[in-house]
């Protein structure tokens, strides 16, 4: 009972931390709420008219939503990039930021599930896909696998983060025997969420652009540079705005790892391009549409080359120690990587898979305003989740705010009504 009561006050205090903030914080949250409202409004419209409010059609039956979903699965998977060295090699400087990685994973997964939800035609039948309640076509359907691994990964991360924060809050050291196996388990699980998502496309013989064995490794490589790119920028902001101490060394180390993964990602892209263009079978049309345009349609071409150029530039910036250790070029590199992978894993993956369609038709897809607004709303939800998690977590991680500290007066046992 005592634990329940303490946990209750943990939740209540977290709520209090989230609700109290500076003007900048309130402005940021308000901005996100506005985006969420706009997204909700657009989504209501989509529910009313059906998915015809998007620009997806039979020829291109997945678009912006699923593109964002795929990209965000990568972000969620990338948190292990930080967990591996921290726990396996017991590398101290990076250890404190793994919990940030896990919170990023939670936020990314919330967005992933959001994008899947807005993409399905009958969200009211959502229960059909739930194991035991509905009828999950497992193990045959890769989407069934994806449902399982994504939710397991979400639950695992949510549990570890809550537990670590709760320990910090109650001023107890966490039980290593409990946390270490869970964190170690999250490593294969993170690999699996991205592998399963890659297989989801990979397994479709009808779509030669995806039906390539290189897809899953490429997913992992690109995820392991784009995920940390977001974290690196975030760590610098947190260093400035809170008392959280993150050593330069940790940041540079992550940046170095990113250089290798980006290099590998570019290599895989080149390998795929070589195979398609040199052998030049009928399957080349999809990559041709992406990089050079097909039959007068060039919509994706500028994006495709922007992605390649950004990736190459970032690779060089992160590879050269001088530019890696320079804050300006480091941050430029992060933005470049983010842009490169966002194009490549989003629209650059989904659209050419469908264009030309299975009967040779070219339908030029561009997201509709509804799609952009709904996507904006989902991103805002993700950012809001992340903001709230950070707002509560940082003071606890720093030991500034615990069950005994951080308030004007000493707390009562129930934790309710203290202010």
């Amino acid at each position, binding site marked *: 009972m005592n634990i329940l009561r303490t946990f209750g006050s943990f939740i209540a205090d977290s709520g209090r931390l989230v609700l109290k903030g500076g003007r900048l914080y309130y402005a940021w949250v308000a901005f996100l709420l506005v985006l969420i409202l706009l997204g909700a409004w657009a989504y*209501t419209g989509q*529910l*009313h*008219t*059906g*998915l*015809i409010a*998007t620009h*997806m*059609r*039979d*020829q291109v*039956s*997945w678009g912006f939503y699923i593109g964002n979903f795929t990209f965000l699965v990568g972000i969620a998977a990338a948190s292990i990039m930080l967990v591996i060295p921290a726990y396996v090699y017991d590398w101290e400087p990076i250890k404190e930021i793994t919990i940030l990685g896990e919170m990023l994973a939670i936020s990314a997964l919330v967005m992933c599930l959001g994008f*899947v*939800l807005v*993409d*399905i*035609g*009958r*969200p*009211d*039948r*959502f*229960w*059909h*896909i*739930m194991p035991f*309640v*509905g*009828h*999950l*076509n497992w193990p*045959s*359907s*890769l*989407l*069934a696998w994806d*449902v399982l691994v994504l939710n397991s990964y979400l639950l695992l991360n949510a549990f570890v983060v809550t537990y670590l924060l709760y320990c910090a809050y109650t001023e107890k050291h966490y039980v290593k025997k409990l946390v270490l196996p869970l964190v170690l388990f999250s490593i294969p699980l993170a690999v699996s969420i991205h592998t399963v998502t890659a297989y*989801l*496309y990979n*397994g*479709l*013989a*009808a*779509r030669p652009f995806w039906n390539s064995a290189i897809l899953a490794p490429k997913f992992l490589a690109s995820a392991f540079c784009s995920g940390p790119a977001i974290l690196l920028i975030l760590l610098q902001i947190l260093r400035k705005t809170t008392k959280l101490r993150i050593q330069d060394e940790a940041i540079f180390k992550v940046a170095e790892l990113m250089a290798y993964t980006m290099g590998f990602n570019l290599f895989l892209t080149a390998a795929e391009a070589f195979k398609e263009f040199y052998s030049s079978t*009928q399957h080349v*049309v999809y990559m041709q549409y992406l990089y050079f345009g097909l039959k007068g349609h060039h919509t994706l071409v500028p994006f495709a080359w922007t992605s390649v150029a950004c990736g190459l530039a970032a690779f060089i910036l992160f590879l050269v120690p001088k530019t890696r250790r320079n804050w300006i070029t480091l941050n430029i590199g992060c933005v470049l990587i983010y842009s490169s992978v966002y194009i490549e894993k989003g629209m650059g993956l989904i659209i050419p*898979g*469908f264009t*030309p*369609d*299975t*009967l*040779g*038709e070219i339908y030029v897809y561009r997201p509709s305003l509804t799609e952009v607004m709904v996507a904006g709303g989902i991103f805002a939800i993700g950012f809001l989740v992340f903001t709230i998690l950070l707002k509560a977590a940082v003071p606890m991680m720093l030991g500034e705010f615990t069950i005994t500290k951080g308030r004007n007066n000493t707390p009562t046992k129930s934790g309710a009504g203290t202010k």
Partner: protein
Amino acid sequence: MSTEQDPQPQPSSCEGGCDVSRRVFLGAAVATVAGALTGCDHISEAEFLQRNFRELSKQEVKDVIARLEQEYKEKFGRDVYVGNEPPIPGVIFAYALDLSRCVGCRRCVYACVKENNQSRDPQIQWIRVLQMDKEEGVNLEHDTAYYDPPEVPAEGHFYMPTACQQCKKPPCVKVCPVGATWREKDGIVVVDYNWCIGCRYCMAACPYGARHFNWGEPHLPADELNPHTHYLGNRPRYKGVVEKCTFCIQRTRNGRYPACVEICPTGSRKFGNILDPTSEIRMVLEHKRVFKFKEDLDTQPNFFYFYGV
């Protein structure tokens, strides 16, 4: 946005009915919320809680069909028969299409729409006729479905109608996350329109562009409705679900030809029981030059193309 809170629609072990009333209440509440959220006019509790068609008992199927007939009557103001004829033992349907005869008139496309109650607005068509270059042969880089010459066949072209190939190894069935689509014993791949969640994974998996999605609310004028329907076939569909050719299951399981076979003015379309050695389809398969569309994918269609002359 959580409709996950729905009750377990399993037969309850609680005999006293204590749980039942609560479940009914919850079901109604969730159905109302779900209806409001999806912008559907209304989703009845029974519709919301309906299970996968293959899991229904005989009595439940009867109830579902009675409910659907009632719903359609209210919607269209006409009596609609929703059949549930099972596969005929000893029958596997197959189709063969004579590429040397087809002139690309597309009468089959519209006969199909009329027979199978597809949405007229937005338009959904299960058959897609591809115009191809004679010089190129069957080549999807040199085809168009949007041809409009004053007269068909156009000089230098031939025509290849496509629809669901009713694969023996259907990729669409393999990928469906909820088992809303399956291959029946007579070889017809069907969709349970009341179980499909509209994820469209099957559309990504189908190599033949055979699956079509109800992007908007399907509009079907009441006077154009074909009231003779089948649960797994041409009964009116819903917004947000996938549909496809069913070899006119409502006809063929009652011994009739599919509408496209009947309408074809050139006799290009052959249909029958592949297990019957005396059938026309067997004659075609045994004596003509036959090929399967995208044979390298090994989907093993029960739909064949041949050159009759």
